C-alpha cells in the first residue's frame, strides 16, 4: 500500500442531539482510488462525505485530507481552502437555477479562483463536451432532465479542478433510463485516475469500478475490502444479507450472461 492516504478518517464520531449517526468511522482513500461506501439507508454514508468536505463537523476523531486536519479547521477561510480541493456532487444536483449551464460551470472558477473568463469558459466547454452536454451550454437547469442536470453538476465540480470528488447518491433521484448516462461519466473519471468516493445504491456499478468498498451499518464500518472480496466473499453476516437483498437471491454477480434468458430471471426477482 502507498504510504500517505489522501483521505484518512480515524474514529470519527458525530451525533445530531441524541441521535448518534457516526459511532467511530475509520476509512482511508489513496490518491487515484475509487472508493465506494455502501450500506442501508440511515447508516451514515452521506454524513461521512459531508464531514470530509467540512459541511458537517465531527465531534470526535480525526479527519485528514492530504496535509489538512479537517477536524481542527475553524475559520471560513480554512474551509474554503479545503473545498477548493474537494469536489462534491449532490443527490439533488443543486444547480443554480438562475444561471445557464455554462454560467453554472464558470461562476466558481471566476469568483473563487479568480480565473479569467475566456480561460474559464474554454475549460467549461471542454468539460461539458466530456459529459456530453456541450449542446446545452446556453440552456437553464429547469430545461434539462435529471440525468442531464446531474452530468452538468459533475462538470461543475470538475471545473474547480479538485483533487478528489465526493459523489453523494448521485443516481438516487434519477429515473432508470438516465442512471446509465451519469454512471458512464463517473466510470470515465475513475479510469482517468480521479480520486472518487461514492455513496451509492448501484451495487453492480460499485463492484465494477471500486478499488475498495466499505460497508456501513448503524454508524460503523462493519466490513471493508476490495470490491471482489466484499461482493464475492463477504465475511460479515450483515453484509451478506444486505448484498443478498440488493443483488438478488444469488448474492453474487453472474460473470457471464446466461445464453438462456429465462435462467437469468432470478437476477430481477424482487425481495420485499
Amino acid at each position, binding site marked *: 500500500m502507498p504510504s500517505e492516504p489522501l483521505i484518512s478518517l480515524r474514529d470519527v464520531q458525530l451525533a445530531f442531539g441524541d441521535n448518534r449517526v457516526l459511532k467511530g468511522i475509520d476509512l482511508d482513500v489513496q490518491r487515484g482510488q475509487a472508493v465506494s461506501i455502501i450500506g442501508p439507508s440511515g447508516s451514515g454514508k452521506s454524513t461521512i462525505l459531508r464531514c470530509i*468536505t467540512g*459541511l458537517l463537523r465531527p465531534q470526535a476523531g480525526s479527519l485528514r485530507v492530504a496535509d489538512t486536519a479537517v477536524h481542527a479547521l475553524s475559520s*471560513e*477561510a480554512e*474551509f*474554503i*481552502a479545503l*473545498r*477548493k480541493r*474537494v*469536489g*462534491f456532487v*449532490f443527490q*439533488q444536483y*443543486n*444547480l*443554480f*437555477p*438562475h444561471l445557464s449551464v455554462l454560467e453554472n460551470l464558470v*461562476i*466558481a472558477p471566476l*469568483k*473563487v479562483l479568480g480565473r479569467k473568463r475566456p480561460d474559464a469558459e474554454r475549460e467549461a466547454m471542454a468539460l461539458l463536451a466530456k459529459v456530453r452536454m456541450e449542446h446545452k451550454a446556453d440552456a437553464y437547469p*429547469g430545461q434539462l432532465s435529471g440525468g442531464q442536470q446531474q452530468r452538468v453538476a459533475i462538470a*461543475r*465540480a470538475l471545473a*474547480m479542478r479538485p483533487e478528489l470528488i465526493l459523489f453523494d447518491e448521485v443516481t438516487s433521484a434519477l429515473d432508470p433510463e438516465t442512471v446509465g448516462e451519469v454512471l458512464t461519466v463517473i466510470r470515465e473519471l475513475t479510469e482517468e485516475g480521479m480520486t472518487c468516493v461514492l455513496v451509492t445504491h448501484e451495487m453492480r456499478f460499485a463492484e465494477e469500478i471500486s478499488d475498495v468498498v466499505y460497508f456501513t451499518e448503524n454508524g460503523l464500518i462493519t466490513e471493508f475490502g476490495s470490491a471482489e472480496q466484499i461482493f464475492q466473499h463477504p465475511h460479515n453476516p450483515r453484509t451478506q444479507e444486505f448484498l443478498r437483498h440488493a443483488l438478488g437471491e444469488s448474492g453474487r454477480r453472474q460473470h457471464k450472461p446466461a445464453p438462456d434468458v429465462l435462467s437469468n430471471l432470478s437476477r430481477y426477482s424482487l425481495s420485499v
Partner: protein
Amino acid sequence: MVTEVFLALWQWSPALGVGLLQNILISITAIGLGTVAGLLVGALAMSPLAPLRVAARVWVQVFRNAPWLVLIYFTTYVFPFEISVGGHYLPFPDWLKVTVGLALPASANVAEIFRGAIGSIPSTQWEAARSLAFDRGQIFRSIILPQCFKRMLPPWMNLYAVVTMGTALSSLVGVHDVIDTAQIASNTVNLTGFTVLIYFSLLALFFAYCYPISRLTQRLERRYAF
C-alpha cells in the same frame, strides 16, 4: 342635461389629469423610498447582531400593523413645513409628507417580502455554493440575491399597486391630488349627474393605471415559478 354633464367632464379632464400625475408622483416616490428602506431593514433583520434584528422586527411589526391613514396624519402633523439645512430653508410640502407616510408601511412590507424571498431559497443552494468554496458574502451576492430579486418582483409590484391606491388618502390632508380635484369639480359644477360621473371617472382612472400592473404581475409570477 346629459351633454352638459359630459361637457363639464371634458372641461375638467385636464385638471383631473394633473391631479392623477400628483398621485403617480407620490406613489412612485413612496415605493422608491419604501424599497430602499425596506431592503435595509430586511438586511438588518438578518444581521448576526441581536439588537439590530430586534430593531428591524419592531419596525416591521409597527408599520405593517398601523392603519395607513393614521400614518399619513402622523407624518403630516409631526413633520415641520420646512427644514433648515445649513442656514437654508428647504420646504417640506404636504405631498412629500404623505409620501413618507406611505413609504413607512411600504418599507415594512418590502422588508417582509425580502425576508420571505431569502427564506424561500432552498438550503441546498447554500450547501452547493459552500461546496464550491464560495464565502458567505459571495453566496449572498452571486447565488441567493439574484434568485431573490426574481421572486420578489411579483409581490413588490403588487405592493406598488396597493400603494398607488393608498395615494387616494392624500386628499384628506389637503394634497391637491386627483380626488381633491374631483371634489372641487363636483362642488363647482354642482350637478348630481356630474358628481356620479366624475367619481366613476376616478374609478376608471385608477383601474386603468393599476390593472396593467396587476396583469404584468400575474405574468411574471407564472414566468418565475420555478
